[in-house]
């Protein structure tokens, strides 16, 4: 393949394409700042996201990041500040897919909005940050990518300037984000103080060469603070409480974007930092504690808190927000299940779950966007009987929710199944506990997901509704996400293979 002839920096092409798309949006808006050509703006962002997706898929197909005879190997850039391997490309795909879905859906949702160009350029800039995060391989580049993602996200959450809920959500999100950024960067400084390096591989080497002997406490505290930063980005306990507020106040496509793409990006840096920089054995000896233990606790607490809180909600968007916290708990199993000589199965399963989640959760939030577009209200009762007016969208909603719950024929079942078998195969008592928590929580989640399905399909509508509009963009995005949630089932062979290979490569 022609990848051989390209210079090394083109390995970052999926992220660079998104950056170029953001600049193109600025140029478009500079040419005619007064007029808002919605179709052009949404089209440019969707095209950019799809181009980024295509390049990332092409790289994976061409064998970037794979060893062996036909593989092209891992691309190392700027002295290892960035690394383009299978895991980076995998998460770039997740980000690009969600960005494309959200741009298409925003075409209808943001129809009457004043700041069109700003909205799309912020969206693409945040996606650029997430894509960069996937490839970042040094604590500095990780922090910069994290901020590049966070800053546009704050503005996006608060973009409905006249809506009290949106502004309040933006402020809360910003305050907690600033706090967790400070904690994260302080953790970075402590790790640097203990090891003298910021590049992840160099940290691992320093730990193995006993550079950090005697600084075990410092290092442990640094690692704990890094976990705090990741917990914010992935909306896990203890920094999860911004999520319901921010998701509820934000425009629904942005909630979809944050809860899917942003969460996946948070997980990729967590995976990379903990697998690359802190080898289990050495780090465990130094700080006197296995760091997987922290993730075992976080995984169980996060999924339990998320699911129990979701079960008591009256508002659909809040329920989805808490369920998104629960799913962060499932994905944390990927880190909890790492062992000294393995764990690629469970981490690959977590990556699979994040990909499937990118479709089913984005789809569910986009259905909420559709409901907000119709103006039907926010509670479960308001959704009663929507299936009579909009059977296609409601059928798609059923697919998303049952997939989120993990009902067998759908994508969500397979990723949860792999997580479960992966956790069991590790075999330690704590992992069996995690596996049990996964099953119990999934069973509980079925209750509140089916509550929404019941409201939409079985309950009679409280008020008489006129026929509902069928906005093309939103419908296209929802139907595509639903098709992908189902289609991922036969395609699960290559997907799971890629994910497990990618996980094995970094461990």
């Amino acid at each position: 393949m022609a990848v051989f002839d390209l210079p090394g920096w083109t390995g970052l092409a999926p992220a660079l394409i998104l950056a170029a798309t953001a600049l193109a949006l600025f140029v478009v808006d500079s040419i005619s700042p007064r007029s808002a050509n919605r179709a052009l703006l949404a089209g440019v962002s969707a095209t950019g996201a799809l181009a980024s997706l295509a390049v990332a898929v092409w790289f994976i197909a061409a064998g970037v990041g794979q060893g062996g005879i036909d593989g092209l190997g891992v691309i190392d850039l700027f002295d290892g500040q960035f690394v383009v391997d299978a895991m980076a490309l995998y998460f770039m795909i997740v980000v690009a897919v969600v960005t494309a879905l959200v741009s298409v859906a925003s075409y209808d949702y943001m129809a009457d909005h004043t700041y069109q160009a700003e909205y799309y350029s912020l969206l693409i800039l945040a996606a650029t940050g997430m894509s960069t995060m996937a490839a970042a391989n040094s604590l500095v580049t990780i922090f910069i990518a994290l901020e590049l993602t966070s800053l546009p996200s704050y503005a996006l959450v608060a973009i409905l300037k006249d809506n009290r809920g949106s502004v309040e959500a933006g402020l809360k999100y910003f305050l907690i984000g600033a706090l967790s950024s400070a904690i994260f960067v302080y953790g970075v400084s402590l790790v640097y103080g203990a090891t003298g390096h910021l590049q992840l591989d160099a940290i691992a080497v320093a730990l193995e060469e006993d550079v950090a002997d005697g600084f075990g406490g410092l290092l442990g505290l640094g690692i704990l603070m890094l976990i705090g930063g990741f917990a914010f980005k992935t909306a896990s306990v203890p920094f999860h409480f911004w999520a319901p507020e921010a998701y509820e106040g934000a425009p629904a496509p942005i909630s979809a974007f944050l809860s899917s793409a942003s969460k996946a990006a948070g997980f990729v840096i967590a995976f990379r930092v903990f697998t690359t920089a802190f080898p289990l054995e050495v780090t465990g000896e130094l700080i006197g504690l296995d760091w997987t233990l922290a993730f075992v606790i976080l995984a169980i607490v996060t999924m339990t808190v998320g699911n129990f809180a979701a079960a008591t909600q009256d508002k659909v968007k809040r329920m989805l927000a808490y369920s998104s916290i629960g799913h962060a708990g499932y994905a944390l199993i990927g880190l909890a299940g790492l062992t000294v000589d393995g764990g690629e199965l469970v981490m690959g399963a977590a990556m699979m779950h994040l990909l499937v989640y990118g479709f089913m959760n984005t789809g569910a939030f986009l259905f909420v966007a559709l409901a907000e577009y119709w103006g039907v209200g926010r509670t479960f009762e308001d959704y009663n009987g929507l299936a009579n007016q909009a059977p296609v969208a409601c059928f798609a909603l059923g697919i998303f929710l049952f997939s989120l719950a993990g009902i067998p024929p759908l994508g969500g079942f397979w990723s949860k199944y792999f997580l479960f078998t992966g956790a069991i195969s590790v075999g330690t008592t704590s992992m069996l506990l995690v596996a049990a928590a996964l099953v119990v929580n999934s069973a509980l989640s079925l209750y509140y997901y089916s509550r929404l399905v019941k409201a939409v399909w079985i309950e009679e509508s409280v008020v008489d509704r006129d026929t509902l509009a069928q906005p093309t963009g939103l419908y296209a995005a929802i139907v595509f996400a639903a098709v992908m949630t189902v289609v991922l089932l036969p395609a699960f062979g290559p997907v799971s293979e890629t994910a497990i290979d990618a996980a094995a490569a970094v461990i």
Partner: protein
Amino acid sequence: MNDWIAIGALALVGLLIPLGMMAVSYLLRPSVPETNKRATYESGEVPTGGTRVRFNIQYYMVALLFLVFDIETVLLFPWAVVYLDAVESDAVSLTEILGPMVAFVVILLVGLAWAWRNGAVQWAQTPRQVESDR
């Protein structure tokens, strides 16, 4: 000798000198109580109004744009210093040394053009001015 002793001695001297000066002047000066001495600026402007003055929101945009170009300068300076050496050496080609900086400046220019077109550098108008423009 421990290095910290020297630092401690410096801190001590740093504290003693101002305290000593204040003590000496307290002993030497005549005491002439007067109300003018209580003013904020004893020999300058007579202060009027409170301390919480409202600044025009426009300063915020100016500060933001300034910050962008400030950082640009910080990056351009070290680049400009090594530029000639890099061009003369064979290890680095002209595109390698020039390309990244041109890309950086172009990105900034796109941002500036966008901000300009969207009225960031336009001075804020009072509602009355906006009315008369229509």
